[in-house]
């Protein structure tokens, strides 16, 4: 029982970290039809800048805020100068966002060197909770709480606000949204910044979770996030949340029981979903919420 609960908590917390990356990716794809491979670069910048700010200030909250700000600034630069000129051209988008990913990952080494950096847990999140012999690491509970709160906030944004209504309509028919007087380019920028901020936040939260950050981690997590987005259904926030939890939990159990298959598992899940329901678990056209 102890092992089961521990694996479950690990899986859910990992899943919610992946969700932070996947949420932006799925919204950006749904609204803008952009497969943004550079998203992993924003994640790794969030991880490094968060770790650096934490080390310099010893304030974890400041580190998170700083990482999100860095992610959003980089996201704005990416959207404005790299992605906006290639809207509607998928081949060019693919090349330019892959290039963006490489530049973002490699430029990490200019600022922080080529070696991985160790990251400590904030003092107030060290330790664990114990119930009847079951030990749950405090930081994982923190990640779960933050992940769930962010999911709720995103859901409320999309389903209860006017800008959320515009985004959902934009996912369905961008042209018609423009014909209603709505500036779709402004909406694109908003969604891109939101996605970039979430990716950076995911990176900042992951840093103390894994204890070490390295420049190549962006690609590793971006691939996981892409798998989640496809499994959940491209453009569906709920689908991404569900798929993140499935991938996170299944990964945690597989890594414990059959570690050799843990990497293959995600691909297997992806293949099953694509064969059974090619639009993804919750991926109906336009189901942004």
């Amino acid at each position: 029982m102890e092992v089961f609960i521990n694996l479950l908590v690990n899986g859910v917390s990992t899943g919610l970290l992946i969700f932070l990356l996947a949420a932006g990716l799925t919204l950006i794809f749904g609204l803008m039809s952009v497969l943004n491979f550079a998203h992993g670069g924003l994640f790794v910048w969030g991880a490094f800048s968060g770790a650096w700010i934490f080390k310099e200030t010893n304030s974890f909250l400041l580190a998170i805020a700083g990482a999100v700000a860095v992610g959003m600034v980089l996201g704005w630069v990416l959207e404005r100068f790299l992605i906006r000129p290639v809207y509607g051209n998928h081949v060019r988008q693919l090349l330019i966002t892959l290039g963006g990913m490489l530049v973002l990952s490699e430029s990490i080494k200019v600022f922080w060197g080529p070696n991985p950096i160790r990251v400590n847990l904030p003092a107030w999140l060290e330790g664990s909770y114990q119930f009847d012999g079951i030990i749950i690491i405090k930081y994982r509970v923190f990640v779960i709480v933050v992940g769930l709160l962010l999911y709720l906030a995103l859901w409320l944004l999309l389903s209860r606000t006017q800008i959320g209504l515009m985004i959902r309509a934009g996912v369905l028919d961008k042209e018609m949204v423009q014909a209603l007087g709505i500036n779709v380019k402004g909406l694109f920028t908003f969604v891109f910044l939101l996605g970039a901020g979430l990716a950076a936040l995911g990176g900042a939260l992951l840093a103390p979770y894994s204890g070490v950050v390295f420049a190549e981690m962006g690609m590793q997590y971006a691939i996981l996030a892409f798998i989640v987005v496809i499994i959940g259904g491209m453009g569906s926030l709920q689908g991404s949340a569900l798929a993140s939890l499935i991938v996170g939990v299944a990964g945690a159990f597989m890594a414990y029981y059959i570690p050799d298959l843990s990497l293959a598992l995600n691909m297997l899940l992806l293949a099953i979903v694509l064969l059974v329901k090619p639009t993804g678990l919750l991926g109906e056209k336009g189901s942004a919420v």
Partner: protein
Amino acid sequence: MSLLKLDNLETYLGQYHILQGVSMSVEEGSITVLFGRNGAGKTTTLRTIMGFNPSTMGSVHYHDQKISGIPTHLISRKGIGYVPENQGIFSALTVEETLNLAKAKSTGETEEKMEWMLELFPDLKKFWSKKSGLLSGGQKQMLAIARAYINGDGLLLIDEPSKGLSPIMVEKLMESILKMQEKTTILLVEQNFLMASEIGDYFYIMDDGKIVHDGWMQDLKEDKETCQKYLGIA
């Protein structure tokens, strides 16, 4: 007074030269009908007015202001409502959400406009919380028209509203469009001559990207030769 004026529009779609010097005007308070065969350039004319397919030459003036060359969302905010040929329904949004979205950037008395549309199309009120994608074809068309009117009631551009609808639904829809003429100006693209000739005041006929004929609708009804030549009506 001309509310909308198109002057010598030339529009290309890729390598195809679709609009070849289209000039026309729409008088305030009128229903002007744009006729023509499939592929004549009617839809492209509306899309050029809305800025989706910008013209390479010529101009569009609305209320004597040049609107060609500005982004679609700013054209819409001048009070131009658009009903595309495929209705452009947001299938996953409810009727309520769709009409609220139409109010977002609307000018004028949006609540009054909303109330009037619900009075004109009671089905929308009945299916207020229903997903738009689950409505019938006629209801979707009503929703598309109501959305366009709430968004911009200065001029409505309506592209083939009768397409795919039953004769009874077409009749109902035409009655509603006729009522809407009391409060707005309409540029209607249609192939259904019998229906459009009953509600239109003025007409233009397009062929191969050019305006080949125009005049009062009453005169067209009596001009068998033109009807036969361009519209295939005996």
